[in-house]
């Protein structure tokens, strides 16, 4: 077995470190994050416009005569757009490497906000279909529902798919998701793949736009096939091939704070993965009671001599089992790297890192790859109590080595140690710094609010949220 080398605390004696090359300050990627995400939104809107145009063309002139006609037409529109958005939702989570690297958490937040909208849209579709037929045949909705389910092929499967989607939407509400935990929430979300497939059939057999226009039907089937191929490639085949090549194993487990542990994982040809500090992987530990789940964890140190490191805090059933079961030698299946939260985002010499709780882990990895003078990197570790501080020993070592200025900030949100005034007190040149924030939703939102109040420009604030 390969002996693990510590991936962190010892700072490499890099002469370039104190005098950074300036090129990273100017090397903007061809398409920066915001224009790229805006371009994707335009593409999405173009798809919706295309479907509406299809509806317009396929709807005969005299189709709209009475109330049920209007309801059926509205049902067709909501159904078309809903089916399209469902496909987009799946594409957003297809783990396309280029998009993941460029947009990272934007994909997740787009998926989430689009998801809520999609649930509403498909609820409207179902309600409109039932209402249309009820009005048209003068029968109560339950009778209509039963007769539709019994006579129209594919609608029963689609209805089951719809119910699964309602469940996935419901369990994604923040309070329920938290109570359910990552595992339960994620398992329900995985059911969306069969649910989407079940809903597909009725679109082709009953959707008026496709039954009357074979060309449109073929494009529709083609697009869905392409997306299925993407999912199989990037969510199954490529991770499987990667794991066969890299053969990761746990090589060391280390306590790094109350209930927090660092896990060192070593494999072959790790450099090929192109992982960067600040990114995350989905890790599957092949041990009893752990193997059936993959969980996302950020790298807590820059990749180092074929060794990757993650640090977790025992907060739930899964992480507690991790603590009990992880031993050197356990095989690990990795999926990644993911995320756009890396030092590439830095455009200023001055940097402020604000990490909440276990959210310091990617920041800890990023500072390892950042060059600068002593005052360039201010590292604020935000926690409610001293017991919540993790990786303190390493951060203090980086501080002693002159790499960062380490500031633990303890306090409740009511008496915020990171209020705008206190931030400006601590860092008078805050305005000229690039800010990296990582933590829970609430912590990140509070930090952004305070920074905005302290007149930091929006484009200089980068957040990564630890919230599945």
């Amino acid at each position, binding site marked *: 077995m390969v002996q693990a080398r510590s991936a962190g605390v010892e700072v490499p004696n890099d002469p370039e470190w104190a005098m950074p090359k300036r090129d990273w300050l100017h090397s903007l990627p061809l398409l920066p994050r915001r224009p790229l995400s805006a371009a994707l939104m335009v593409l999405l809107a173009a798809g919706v416009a295309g479907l509406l145009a299809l509806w317009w063309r396929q709807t005969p002139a005299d189709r*709209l005569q009475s109330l049920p006609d209007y309801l059926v037409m*509205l049902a067709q529109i*909501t159904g078309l757009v809903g089916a399209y958005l469902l496909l987009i939702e799946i594409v957003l989570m297809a783990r396309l490497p280029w998009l993941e690297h460029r947009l990272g958490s934007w994909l997740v937040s787009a998926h989430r906000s689009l998801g809520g909208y999609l649930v509403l849209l498909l609820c409207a579709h179902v309600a409109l279909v039932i209402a249309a037929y009820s009005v048209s045949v003068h029968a109560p909705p339950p009778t209509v529902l039963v007769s539709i389910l019994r006579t*129209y092929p594919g609608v029963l499967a689609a209805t089951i798919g719809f119910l699964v989607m309602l469940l996935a939407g419901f369990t994604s509400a923040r309070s329920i998701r938290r109570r359910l935990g990552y595992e339960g929430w994620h398992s329900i979300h995985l059911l969306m793949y069969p649910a989407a497939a079940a809903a597909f059939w009725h679109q082709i057999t009953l959707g008026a736009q496709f*039954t009357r226009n074979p060309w449109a039907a073929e494009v529709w089937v083609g697009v869905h096939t392409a997306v299925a191929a993407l999912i199989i490639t990037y969510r199954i085949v490529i991770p499987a091939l990667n794991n066969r090549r890299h053969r990761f194993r746990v090589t060391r487990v280390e306590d790094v704070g109350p209930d927090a542990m660092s896990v060192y994982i070593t494999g072959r040809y790790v450099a090929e993965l192109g992982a960067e500090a600040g990114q995350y992987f989905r890790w599957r530990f092949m041990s009893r009671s752990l193997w059936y789940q993959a969980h996302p964890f950020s790298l807590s140190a820059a990749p180092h001599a074929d060794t990757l490191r993650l640090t977790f805090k025992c907060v739930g059933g899964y992480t507690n089992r991790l603590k009990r079961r992880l031993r050197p030698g356990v095989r690990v299946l990795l999926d990644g790297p993911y995320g756009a939260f890396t030092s590439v985002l830095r455009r200023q010499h001055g940097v402020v890192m604000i990490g909440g709780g276990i959210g310091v882990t990617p920041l800890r990895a990023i500072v390892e790859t950042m060059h600068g003078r002593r005052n360039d990197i201010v590292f604020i570790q935000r926690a409610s109590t001293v017991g919540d501080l993790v990786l303190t020993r390493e951060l203090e070592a980086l501080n002693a080595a002159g790499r960062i200025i380490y500031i633990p900030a303890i306090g409740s949100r009511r008496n915020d140690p990171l209020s705008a005034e206190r931030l400006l007190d601590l860092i008078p040149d805050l305005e000229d710094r690039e800010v990296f924030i990582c933590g829970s939703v609430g912590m990140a939102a509070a930090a952004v609010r305070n920074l905005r109040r302290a007149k930091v420009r929006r484009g200089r604030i980068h957040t990564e949220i630890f919230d599945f």
Partner: protein
Amino acid sequence: MHIPHVKTLLSIVGTAGAMGALIAAKTSAHGLPPKPPPATESALGTGSSAVMTVTGPPIPITHGIVQVRITMAGGRITSVAATSLPHDNNVSWARSVGAASVLAREVIAAQSAHVDAVSGATYTSDAYLKSLQAAIDAGKG
């Protein structure tokens, strides 16, 4: 957290507005006639032995449009054919084709539009018989 609710509300209102506008545009784009157009006829020959083809008005129902054409010879209905049947999807198409053939047979036997609707295709049948009645009226008038 008030802002997400505002966004949700805005997106619902926006979507409803956009769909309403689309439907309204569709309705006005075609300037719908409030009443179905009258039956049209064409005749071969004259007198009681004339062979006449009459097309009934299109009757829109929820799943599509129903229109019937009849051929009359000497005041008798010799054949009935549907020129348009609901075809929004294969199910309504199959069902209305079945109903149309049953109705055609019954109408020729009864020589009138007063036949029973085919069960399972009540609305298609009603529209069929309505278009047929208009065609018969036009043919006899």
